[in-house]
């Protein structure tokens, strides 16, 4: 038997690991976008109970390690995703865990963005006779999305990086395939980890760099959004 080498490792990561990581990122961010935007709208325009709910949701999901969430949605409730093929259940658990966690952060991002559009423009839209819904769709959200872009690109980086936690529940993403394929040859462990690190960097740095520069009301220096 021939041991693996670095080019083969690279190929396997690209064939199996990267698609899985991107899948988790896509669904995690997507779910987070839908839920996060709804939460943000609840916080800005909702009734008092809605606001309390959204706030509580944010606080809770921001206070629990994402690995714990992944475990809850995979091993914690084994039959939760009975409708998907058993082999895919861990990755679906990872989407959901990363998605509902991302929702808490995206809610903050969009709330800030919506607020920074300013009440004046909403008043102006309403005084033209627009409904609340029209004012959101035509005036507030287009601007909010633009303002949120730098912070949102940061959130993308957070999710793709944290998709590596799914390796612990048996999802063959970048880290897991690398550890598996080199398991029998310790000489390759370190080079493999260098490759893994490099690949993540390729997927995060250009994106955050490009969109981070596109002005907006937010600075995204850290793991999460900071308002200035």
């Amino acid at each position, binding site marked *: 038997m021939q041991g693996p080498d670095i080019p083969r490792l690279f190929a396997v990561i690209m064939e199996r690991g990267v698609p899985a990581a991107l899948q988790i990122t896509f669904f995690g961010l997507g779910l987070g976008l839908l839920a996060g935007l709804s939460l943000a709208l609840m916080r800005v325009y909702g009734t008092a109970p809605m606001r309390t709910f959204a706030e509580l949701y944010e606080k809770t999901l921001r206070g629990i390690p994402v690995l714990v969430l992944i475990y809850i949605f995979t091993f914690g409730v084994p039959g939760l995703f009975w409708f998907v093929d058993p082999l895919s259940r861990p990755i679906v658990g990872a989407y959901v865990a990363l998605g509902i966690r991302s929702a808490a952060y995206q809610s903050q991002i969009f709330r800030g963005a919506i607020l920074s559009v300013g009440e*004046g*423009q909403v008043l102006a839209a309403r*005084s033209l*006779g627009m409904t609340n819904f029209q004012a959101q769709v035509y005036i507030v959200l287009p*601007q909010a999305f633009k303002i949120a872009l730098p912070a949102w690109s940061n959130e993308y980086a957070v999710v793709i990086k944290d998709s590596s936690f799914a390796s612990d529940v048996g999802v063959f993403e970048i880290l897991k395939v690398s550890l598996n394929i080199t398991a029998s040859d310790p000489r390759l462990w370190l080079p493999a980890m260098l490759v893994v690190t490099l690949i993540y960097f390729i997927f995060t740095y250009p994106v955050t760099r490009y969109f981070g520069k596109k002005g907006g009301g937010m600075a995204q220096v850290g793991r999460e959004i900071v308002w200035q």
Partner: protein
Amino acid sequence: MSDIVLRVEDVWKSFGDLQVLRGISFDVAESEVKVIFGPSGSGKSTLLRCINYLDPPDKGEIYLRGKRLGDPDTDINKIRSRIGFVFQHFNLFAHLKAIDNVAIGPEKVLGLSKEEARERAMRALKHVKMDKWADHYPAQLSGGQQQRVGIARALAMETDVILFDEPTSALDPELIGEVLQTMLDIAKEGTTMVVVTHEMGFARSVADEMIFIDGGVIVERGTPHHFFTSPESERVQQFLHKLDELYGQTRDERRTIAERDQE
């Protein structure tokens, strides 16, 4: 009377414990220009927001051409599309070019086609002499230009009446003139207007009636001639005197600086 466009009837409004409006009533006739003034915090902005139900009054009624706004079967958005509003801080839509700021109302609210809406918007921009700036974003325009776009946005809706809330008070002195000129022009064309302003020159030249509000009530009302020759209440006299001190002085200063520049 058939030519009453807007009727404000005994409007009351409070925010928590703060009673802001305590029974305001007046009528605005077709082509009339009504100027409302009074000290800061007297409730002028609140009154205008009550008129188009952005802040529904606690008590009292607003009628637009006889239609009661508070009626359960009144579509308030339809009514608002017939009442223009020009804001102190312009409130232009920051993500839209001047032309789209003006066109979005006719297109999305009145249901005009995109082309019709843009055509109408262009006419409105020409009206306020901003057609050359149609493709600029609000951030690329001066305050005076932004406010003229704000006026065009109201004009393009072809409303029954336009409400102005201190349209020049956020502007640098040298930009006030162009906005006042635009307002004078549309007033002379017969636009029905309710204007909250402290620009007494504007009031003097086009107001049909002036209303002085303080403490949420109408303290005194009358023609400009009445206010500038024989105001009755002491509060009005004091207020006009203060305005004169403030604005008159700055106007003198402006003149001296201009004269100095010429030398």
